[in-house]
Structures are given as structure tokens and as C-alpha cells.
């Protein structure tokens, strides 16, 4: 992250951003020619090395992904489901080994066996119709189906939007209130960020509103990278206007005129749906009579988990290397192109309509303690009834498992809730937790995004640990020493313990986890030790052969 690059890239602005130019050059020509690099460097007045630095960061822009015809989902749920080999071997009937790539989580965790072909995602039994898919004669719509249900009488997120014009008219009544009043309402609602960190959104909004800047941005973080999570995809596809409204409302309140939706490239269908929704809004806007202007820009990711971290995400939009940036300054002061920026997760934004329509009290009366409102949860394919559910905060975990998910198809020894950095909760602890930030934190877990990954009893925990380290090593931006080196070394230790029967020093491993946790710059490196320690604590017996005491 460089302020100078931020300033130079800002000269071209969001509509001519470097990130899309680089993606365009690579996708249209198959690679980044030296002439393109020179031209881009000249156009943006930056270094050729900067162009290469950006292009080389993303999975989908890497030369090894040129010419890939299909991608197999390498996400956690697909791994645990054990279907990846099958999918891969079926793809081999039609493609060369070199034409098949890997992609990390297509968000089809409810039925797995996920793969991407020709910018469309498939899962479940679709692989059985691969020939038809390839020749374009498949009879099904590739949009996946999964159970969707609100476990609350009056849903905040899952209530149907019957009339778009009416829905957006809330903006008109907002215009009659003072912006301070509106911020106050959001603060009073107690709404906390749904992306994982749980930061009070009203405070962020207030900071952005107070920050001075000739331009401000609202960024929707739709880079739902947590393997196992597909609730953001659900909202973006089923309730796109709730997300757009959240951005509009945030923009009005904080004085931003430009919204940016950063959507991961792994969700090609989602991007199309949002594009359509934006155009629907633009049509409505003409007759709405708003006193403020606000435009949307959709940016498609290019394959990088760390872009879900807000400072990396902003750097990514600008076209810089999406490395995590030190804070302060915070994005609300120095965000996209150096301007005050409010970055919020999809689900967080989708809550704003309810709050602004029904008031803070209506919202905060739902939930438990500082976990106000509801939470979307997504259950993986080991549940008897996988799907996305809206539940009020505070629901007992066992109720989610038994009543909502209807229990498991096979024996499960632990749930990994909240993405790769969330807590791994052994079955023995399921009775003790309720679904809210506090309960999870106090017990040494993390609710994160509230996605549910079931770890089957038969799946070796040492492999799961290796998977967690490998994921972090693959996705680490490389900026801070602990994460860049620690994730790699941890992965190597775990691999050696299996392949070479080289037991890991417990002291060394403890030191490594502490270094990652205390030393890492962002949540990726510092978050990894939590699930790892959960596993070490609760599955020490299973892991005993792989560790040694000195």
C-alpha cells in the first residue's frame, strides 16, 4: 500500500480504475504483454513493477490459470464432503489435466461437488450431466436451490420486497430527518458488523460522516471468501435491493456519492443479478425525487481471500497490490483513493432498511445483549436440512443443529463455525453455547460469519489442521512476517508430521501460534490460532501421535 500510488490512481478515478484495466488486459489477451505493462504504467504514471505486482497477486490472473476450462472447488465443505476427486475425475473425461484448475469455495456448501465451467457454477449432481453442460444442452438452470427459512415471525432480512418503488421511498422519509438523527438511530440499534469482526456500524458511519473530504465512498464488501459461507451470496442474489438500499442510506447519511460493490469473481451469477438490480434502481431513481446523487460501481474480484480484509479490499479496487495496510489511518478517514470510506459487509448493509424503517428499538429488541437483531446462518451438506436461515441472536446452538438443521446425515465430531478463522466446537460443547457474539467469545470461540462446517468423525483432525494452515499460507498477502512465514512453516510442520512421521515439537508449535496471534497485522494470521487451539485442546488424544514433548 502506497499513498503515492493511491494518489496517482485516484487521478483516473473509479471508472477508469487500474484493477479492471489489468483484468481486461489479461482476460482479453490471455496474458499481460510487456507492451500492455508499459502502456498501463505510462497511463497511470506508475511503475511497470507496480502493474506486475498487482497482476501477480490474484489467483485468476496468474499465468498458471491461463487456459483453464474448468475449476474444482477446493473449499472446506467440498474437501470434507470428499467429492473433489470424483468431480476432478469426471472433468478429466472432457478436459486435459492442465485445463482444470482449483477455485476456493464457490459457496455451494449445501450440496458440494462444486465446479465452475465457462463462468457458471455447478454443484450437487450437476457433474453427472457434464457432457450436456459442456455442449450447452443441459436442461437445468444452474442457479442452485437450497432451503431458505426465517426462524422468526417477522424477519428482518428475509421478508419479501413486494414493491421496489415503495421500498426505496424510505429514502424520501429519511430526507426529512436530520442526518445526526439517522446516525443516532443506527448507533442505538446496536447493529454490529456481520462480516466477522462485529464492530458497531453506527460508530463507523458517524466517523465517516464527520470525516472531511471532497468525496466519500461506500464500499460493500461482497468478497465472501470464508469457505462454508454462502449467506452473502444468498442476500445478493435474493435480496439485492436490500444491499443497494443499505449502501444508499449509508451514502446519504455520511455524505458519500459513490458506492462500490466488490463482488468475488467466484460468484459470476451473483454479479449479473446485482448488475440487473442496479439498473432497476436507476430506473426507479428517475421518479423517486431524491435530493442526493449516488452511483454504483461493481468491481469483480480476481481470486484472493485477503481482499475480504477491508484495507486490502480498498487497495484492490484502486489497482494496488491488495496487501493489508496498517491502521491508523482507518478507512473512514483515509479509505478508497485516500477519501473517507465506509466499508461494510453485505448482511450488515441489508439490515439498514429495517432499522431505518422500524426504528432502533424494534431492531435492538431482537437478539441478546450486544448481539442485536438476527443472523443469517448457513448449514453445510452434512446437515439433514442444509440451507440459509435467519435466526434471532441468542438461539441455543443445539436448537440450530437439531431443529433447524434436523441433525446430521453422518456422525460429526465438531462444527467449524464462522469460516476458517472461526471456532472449532467439539460435539461435547454444543450444549453450552448460544448463537451470539458473547457466548462464543466467552467460551473461546468466534462466531465470525456464522457459517456451519461439519467435520465428520472420520475426518482426521491433523489433516484439518493442515488444511487450515495451507489455506492461510495460500491466502496470506505476505505483508507481515508472522503470517507470511508462520503459515508456511506451520503447514510444513503438519505435512511432515504426516508424511515423514516427524512429530512436531509442542513448544515450537505453541510459540508459532503465539507469534501468529500476537504478531500478525490482520485477522488472517492472528485469527488462525483460535481454531487451531480449539482443535489441539479438544482433540489432543487424536493428535497425540503427531506431537512430541521435549
Amino acid at each position, binding site marked *: 500500500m502506497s499513498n503515492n500510488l493511491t494518489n496517482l490512481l485516484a487521478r483516473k478515478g473509479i471508472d477508469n480504475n487500474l484493477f479492471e484495466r489489468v483484468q481486461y488486459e489479461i482476460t482479453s489477451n490471455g496474458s499481460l504483454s510487456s507492451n500492455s505493462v508499459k502502456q498501463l504504467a505510462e497511463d497511470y504514471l506508475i511503475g511497470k513493477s507496480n502493474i506486475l505486482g498487482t497482476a501477480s497477486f490474484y489467483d485468476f490472473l496468474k499465468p498458471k490459470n491461463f487456459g483453464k476450462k474448468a475449476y474444482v472447488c477446493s473449499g472446506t465443505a467440498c474437501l470434507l464432503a470428499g467429492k473433489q476427486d470424483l468431480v476432478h475425475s469426471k472433468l478429466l473425461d472432457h478436459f486435459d489435466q492442465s485445463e482444470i484448475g482449483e477455485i476456493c469455495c464457490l459457496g455451494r456448501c449445501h450440496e458440494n461437488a462444486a465446479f465452475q465451467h465457462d463462468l457458471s457454477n455447478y454443484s450437487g449432481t450437476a457433474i453427472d450431466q457434464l457432457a450436456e453442460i459442456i455442449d450447452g444442452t443441459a436442461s437445468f438452470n444452474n442457479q442452485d436451490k437450497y432451503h431458505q427459512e426465517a426462524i422468526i415471525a417477522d424477519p428482518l432480512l428475509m421478508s419479501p420486497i413486494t414493491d421496489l418503488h415503495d421500498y426505496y421511498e424510505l429514502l424520501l422519509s429519511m430526507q426529512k430527518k436530520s442526518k445526526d438523527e439517522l446516525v443516532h438511530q443506527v448507533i442505538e440499534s446496536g447493529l454490529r458488523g456481520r462480516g466477522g469482526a462485529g464492530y458497531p456500524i453506527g460508530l463507523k458511519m458517524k466517523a465517516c460522516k464527520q470525516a472531511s473530504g471532497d468525496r466519500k465512498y461506500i464500499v460493500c464488501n461482497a468478497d465472501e471468501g470464508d469457505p462454508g459461507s454462502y449467506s452473502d451470496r444468498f442476500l445478493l442474489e435474493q435480496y439485492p435491493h436490500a444491499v443497494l438500499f443499505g449502501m444508499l442510506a449509508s451514502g446519504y447519511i455520511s455524505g458519500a456519492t459513490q458506492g462500490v460493490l466488490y463482488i468475488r469473481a467466484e460468484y459470476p451469477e451473483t454479479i449479473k443479478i446485482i448488475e440487473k438490480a442496479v439498473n432497476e434502481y436507476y430506473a426507479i431513481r428517475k421518479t423517486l425525487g431524491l435530493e442526493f446523487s449516488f452511483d454504483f460501481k461493481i468491481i469483480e474480484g480476481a481470486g484472493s481471500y485477503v481482499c475480504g480484509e477491508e484495507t486490502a479490499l480498498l487497495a484492490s479496487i484502486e489497482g494496488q497490490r491488495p496487501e493489508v495496510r496498517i491502521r491508523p489511518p482507518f478507512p473512514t478517514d483515509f479509505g478508497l483513493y485516500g477519501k473517507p470510506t465506509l466499508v461494510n459487509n453485505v448482511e450488515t448493509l441489508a439490515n439498514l432498511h429495517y432499522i431505518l424503517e422500524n426504528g432502533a428499538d424494534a431492531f435492538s429488541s431482537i437478539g441478546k445483549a450486544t448481539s442485536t437483531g438476527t443472523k443469517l446462518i448457513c448449514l453445510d451438506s452434512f446437515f439433514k436440512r442444509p440451507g440459509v436461515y435467519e435466526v434471532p441472536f441468542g438461539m441455543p446452538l443445539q436448537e440450530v443443529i437439531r431443529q433447524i438443521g434436523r441433525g446430521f446425515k453422518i456422525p460429526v465430531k465438531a462444527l467449524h463455525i464462522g469460516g476458517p478463522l472461526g471456532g472449532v466446537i467439539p460435539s461435547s460443547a454444543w450444549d453450552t453455547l448460544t448463537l451470539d457474539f458473547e457466548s462464543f467469545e466467552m467460551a473461546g470461540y468466534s462466531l465470525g460469519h456464522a457459517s456451519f462446517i461439519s467435520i465428520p468423525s472420520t475426518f482426521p483432525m491433523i489433516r484439518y489442521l493442515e488444511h487450515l494452515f495451507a489455506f492461510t499460507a495460500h491466502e496470506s498477502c505476505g505483508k*507481515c512476517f508472522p503470517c507470511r512465514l508462520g503459515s508456511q512453516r506451520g503447514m510444513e510442520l503438519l505435512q511432515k508430521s504426516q508424511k515423514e512421521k516427524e512429530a512436531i515439537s509442542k513448544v515450537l508449535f505453541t510459540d508459532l501460534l503465539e507469534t501468529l496471534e500476537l504478531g500478525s497485522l490482520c485477522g488472517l494470521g492472528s485469527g488462525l490460532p483460535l481454531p487451531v487451539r480449539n482443535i489441539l485442546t479438544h482433540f489432543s488424544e487424536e493428535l497425540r501421535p503427531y506431537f512430541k514433548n521435549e
Partner: protein
Amino acid sequence: MNNLRGNSMKKIAYIDDTAYEIEVGENALRFLQREMDQSQIPTLCDAPHLSPGGSCRLCSVELAKTKNGKRNVVASCHTYLQDGDHLYIHTDRIKRLRKNIVELILTDHPLDCETCHQNGTCQLQTVAATVGLEKVRYPEGKTHGNYQQDLSHPYLTADLSKCINCNMCVRACDEIQGEFILSMVGRGFDSRIIKGMDTVFKDSDCVSCGACVQVCPTAAISDIFAPLEKNADKKIRTVCTYCGVGCNLEVAVADERIIRISAPYEAEANQGHTCVKGRYAFQFYQHPDRLRHPMIRKNGELVPSTWDETYDYIIEKLGSIKSDYGPDAIAGISSARCTNEENYLMQKMMRAVIGTNNIDGCARICHAPTAAGMQRAFGTGAATNSIADIQHTNCILVVGANPTNAHPVTGAKIKQAAIQGKNLIVIDPRKTELARYANYHLALRPGTNVALLNMMLRFIVEEELIDQEFIQTRCEGFEEFKLKILNLDITELEKICGVDRKLVRAAAITYATASTAMSFHGLGVTEHSQGTFGVMLVANLALLTGNIGKPGSGVNPLRGQNNVQGAADMGVQPHQGPGYFDLSDPAQRAIYEDIYKVDMPDHPGLTIPKMFEAALTGQLKALWIMGEDVVQTEPNSDKVKAGLRKLDLLIVQELFLSATTPFAHVVLPAASFFEKNGTFTNGERRIQKVRQIIPPLQGVKSDGQIAVDIMNRMGYSQPDYNPEWVLDEIATIVPFFKGVSWERLGENGLQWPVMEDGSDSKILHKMAFTHGKGKIHFIDFKESPELIMHAKKFPYILTTNRSLEHYNSGSMTRRTNENLLVYEDILLVNKEDAQDKNLVDNDWVIISSPRGSTKIRIKVSDQVNPGIVSTTFHFPEILINKITSDVLDSEADCPEYKVVAVDLERIGFK
């Protein structure tokens, strides 16, 4: 316990329960570094001049809001403390964290310290020892050990197997130099540093400033001099000789040889940065070509001689010329490369001992019009503000200057400011590096500064963007000026300079409406037939808009050589002595006579161009040149040579034989700036100490000592050369040196005027101008006689300039590895012209002018507009000054190097 400095308004933070004051805006790392021993807080991604990195995490400490409060581990480099915060810097947890991080680093670092050239100066090694790391416990894993070394570059080297990904080189390239040559590529463990298009240093666009080398904590990015640094027995600070920025250099010495040069972070002039010349171009001092004994021409040959014999020869010759033709048959050319004290002694020798005002310096051919023009406008011919003002200004106007080449550290600062969004206006015929980043680039036809500046001035007056109050209280001449400027025909001016009026208007408005605006100008303003007038119009811009006497404003000439300002201050000009007293005025002359105890010459002497003319007519018989290669650097060299041939005595005092020495009767071997003490005054009036790094080479004397020796032998007694006594004498004469003494100058020097109490001046003309009011002059454009006379036959305009890698005639830089970077002058030709003339890159052409012709290779470039060609003058083989014009500035006799009527003829590829 506390450790407070007694300021009760200050906020307090505690380090291990001891209270200290926090400075506003500093991060916890800077706070800890200030209050504790530097080694207490290890770090591997921090340098004083870089923004916080946050990569290594070694500076982590525990932070609590209260003494017994919950402690969080934070990286101190991006933690900002609040009143009452408690830091704990050496807890077991912190010690363990640091040690474990270093252990991780060493899992991917070759453990070959014993054979590594950085052994002993490696930061990683130091930090590993500090944290007490004994062994690496991890089994062998993936590493970057297989990376190839990069030894492609004459100075820079890379061995990225030793890189620890601290990103400091990338940040230095970006935040200091603004070049973006380096970047990380890839991600995570696989990320690595690349140069340019993932190539070697030599093939990248690297400007070789060495900022990356200076910050690299290991041997990953280094230079050819680094391996010897551990042998250094001392490091001495001095001032660079390669331009008017006045970079401080820290010179490492071993056994009286220079080992390596770095830039001290605490230097106010350059804050830890310098350029390829300052950092690397030092080897000339021990080049075999260095002159090591005096020489006298005998039977047409220069033959070695002793100092005594040579002095006797000089005294005898000068004595007879003086008695036969009078003192005015003798002239001296002093040097802006020499110290203030040497320049002072040189003029003293000419005036007080020989008895003539025929003393001039190389400023004549660069900034004499600046001195003249600014004296007329403000009363003082010196930069009104300081370089540091770039931080405070809201608009920068660069006129006729290419500082990223010629004043690289200032150039980098201006570029940084532009990148960060400050308004930048560049007036230059060429698309310079700064022009690429500017809001407005006014690419005028060479020689039309006056027309273009008049357009700007007219728009400012017409649109009433003037500072009425400032004009009324501080200026005179406005009403008359206003009448005349409004009478000018914009269409006509637009046609003359070839720049769209809308662009000029927008630039003028930007300059005039900025809350503060500062201008920088170079030889693109001065080296013109209307050079002095151009300077006066730049001054007008400042006067009309009230941009004088306050931070972030002013008129700031970029001095070409290191001591142009100082040489003029010391009286190296034929009409004014030290301190600019007019020698034709008896009262002012008496100031010198009181001190020198002799009668001083009362009529103005000859300027350099007039010296050659006088030589040609036989009026001038003897010329003493201290450190200038007039044949290579003066325009119309054939005429210069003809003049020199007519002299009875030509004394050249030099480091090397030059294009001028073939005409010399006596050559005196002089000491380089590494070999003597003294002071240089940089472009912002900063008088800085030049320190002797090594003794003069055997057989060589400093220019100051030579002047002293001659004066003594001519019966005017002077002590041996030593800046201390000379400065004391200068302080008695030069009013703005009143408070200067060797001791007082300290590490960072003082900016004149220096008051009796030693306080100095960052900004001039705060309350009043030197001569009371600022003078606004109206000047009308006049086409250069060069073009009027010759444009028809020679339809192209040549404008000369400087490369980054070479300094002036190149006598020093050509004798270093700079010559491996740039080894010839290249003519830049626009694409259209190249097509017309059927030229491609590397073709040779004959470039001819009314004075003569030379052969040169071309490069097709969009840096120049059609009809304009441009090249440098560093190489005597090309000797571009053979063809340059000896049209002079009408006011200050500065030659018009920037407008030369030429034609091109293709020879073909050779």
C-alpha cells in the same frame, strides 16, 4: 519516577512505569526511539525517513490504558499513544515474540554470515543478536535460496536470496525518490521483489539513487562499495559538490581512501537521501588522470615542474604583464565548485593584490541573470525561501528547470509534492519528468519565456487575481506595469510562444489563486538573450500575487553548481565585491579598503565572455582559471580557443587535464573537495561545512592555499589557508555573514543572513525588501538575435540541458562508473522531425549551426516538440558547445545556450 522536560501541556505516556512526554503526532516507535536507547526496540522494516511499515512486527510492545490494566500487544510503529498510556517493552511475552519472529525470518535466509559482505553491518544480524536467538528449530522447508544475483549495474547489486521482504526498498523507491522501480510481486510466502519489468537493475528505469541500498537491512539490495564498509575507520560528514541542493554526505574512510558514501538522516538539506552522483560518483578523486604536480609549457609541451619553480614563473610573468600593460590586462575566473573561502581569496588576490576587478565566475554562464534580475526586483539575488517550503506550499511553478536530473533531491521532493496532489505548473519546452506529473505543462518554443510569462501576468491582472494590499504596501511600479501589460496582444503572444492561451490562463489562475505559491527556476530562464528579464517576470508573478516573505512562497533559483550562490556572495563578479558592495562607489569601496589595507580598483572589470573578446583584441594578456573548462563549457568554443591562443599567460588550476589545458602555459594541480575544508552555500542560502575527508593527493594543493601562496609571494601577507580565519574575515565585511563562524555552522549550517547572535533566516523579505519596495517592471518580448539572423538557414532550435548521471563538463563524473551508465551525449529528436529527416534511434547526424558542426547520435523522443532538438554537453568528443550561440543576455552577459539555430543532416548508422 518521571523523565519530564517540564512542559505541563504535554501528554504523558509511561515506558515501564516511567513517565515521558509524547510529541504530537508521533507514533509509539518514534517515541520509544527518542526516549530509549535505539537498540532497545528492534525493528527490521523502519527507517527514519519512511512511513511506518508494519511488516516485521519486531517493534511490538505491550500497551495498557492504566498501570495494571489489560495489556495488548501492539506494533509500536503504527500505534499512536494517548495521555496516560503505559508501554511495557521487555516483558517475557514480548521478548519471546521478537525472538520467535527472528527465528521465522532465519528459516528463509541463507546462514552464510561468515562469507556475506554485510557481515558486521547487517541489521538482521544485529537484531538476531539483540533478541538472543541461538538456533532455528524449524526443519528445513521451502526457501528463496535459489535466486540469482544481479550484478548487471555499475553500482547497484541484488541478491534476493537474502531478502526478508521488509518492503523498505519498495517504500524508499516510492516515498523518497518517487520512481516506482521496485515492487513486490506474487503473494504470501512466494512474494518477492522485482525491478521494473522483472528485470535486472541495469535494464530497469532505475535512477540509481541508492535509496533502496541505504535502507536494506541485509545484503539483498546493495552496491559495489558495501563490501568494504566494514573496514572503515571513520565516517566524516561533508557536503556534495554536484549541485546546489547541498546534500550532506557521510563519507566512510579507511586508510585515507574513500570506501563508501551514504546520506545522513539528520541532514536538514537532504534528510537521508541523495542521488547517483552524490552517493556513487566519487572515484574520480583517485583516478590515474588526477594531476599530481604543477606543469609549465616549455617548447610547446606541458612539462612537470615543482611548485617553487611554477610559482616563480607565475610571479615573474604576472609581474611583467602588470608592469607592461597594467593590472586590467590580467583576469581571473573563479569557480562555483570551490569553497566560499577559496572564492573569497581568489577575488581578494585579483583585486587587492593584482589590482583589477577582472574577476568573474562560472555563474556568469548560468545564474548571473538570476542575481541581476532578483536584485532589481527584490534587492537581493538569492532564493527567497527554503526547500523545506515545498511541504508548505499549495502550488509549485517550475520554469526552465529539470530538477529530477539536475537537482535530483529537490526534484524528487517536487515530484513527491505533485504526486501527493499539490498543484504543479511546468514551463519548459521539453516534457521533463516533472512535466509528466504536472497539472499544466506549458511547452513553449525555446526563447519565449518573456512572452509566455507576460501572458500569465496579463491574465492575472485582467482577472484581478492580484494581491492588492501587498502591491500597495510592498511594491512600486504597478500602475505603469498594469497599463502596459493590458496593452499586450494575447493573440500575438500566443503565436510567439506556441502555447494555447486557455492552458496559460488556467495555469495563471492556479498560481494566482493558490493560498501560497512558490516558483523554482533554472537555466531555462537565465540562459537567454532575455534571461535577466525572464527572471524579473518570474519575480513579478510573486510580487503581484503577494507570494513573497511567507512560508511556501517566493522565487527560488535552482543553482546549478554546488556553490553558485556562495561564489557570488564572495564577490566573484566584476562589479561587486564580497557582500555585493559596488566598487565604483567610493563609500562602498572603502569597506574593502579598510580591511584589505590597499586601494581597490574602482571600475567594473570584465565578465567572462568579455574576457575572451578582450583576449582576441589583445587587451587581455593573462587569464587565471580556477576550476573551469572554458573550452568545453563556454559557447562557441572555436572563438574561445582563438581568444585563449592570444594570451601571454593562461594559468589553469584543475583536477585533470581538460579541453582548456592545451592552451595553458601553466597547469596547477588542485585538491578535490574531499581533500580540503571550507564552506559551500547551497541554493537556499545555507552555508554548510565542507570537511576534509582525506589529505590532498601527494603534490597537490587546495585552491585556497594556492591563492594564499601567490599573495604571499606577491608581498601581501596571508596566513595559510584555513576556513576559520577566512570566514572570520568574511564576517567583518559581508553583512549577511555577520554571525557566521566555523564553529557556529554546526552540522546543518546556517541560512544567511546570519545575525550577530548566530540566528539565521529561512525566508527573506518578510517585512520589507532589501531596497525598500519590490519593483514591478514591464518587459516586452524580443525575439533572440540568433533566430532573427539564422532561423532561415538553420530551421531547428537546439536547447541544451543536463543528464542525471553527469555533472557539467563531466570532468569528474566521466572518471567514475557514471560513464558506464551514460557514455555519450544523445540528441533528442521529435518523431515528426525524425520522419522528415529519415532518422531512427542511434542514427548519427551532423548538427550544424552558424558557428560550426559536430556529430552526434539521435534518439527519437516525445520529450521535445517538432522543430526542437535537445542534448547534453558532458562529452568533449561531441563538444556541442562548438555550435552553441554566443548571443548574450542583454543585462548580465549570460550566453544563450538554450536557443541555438541548427540544422540536421543524417550520416547514417555507424
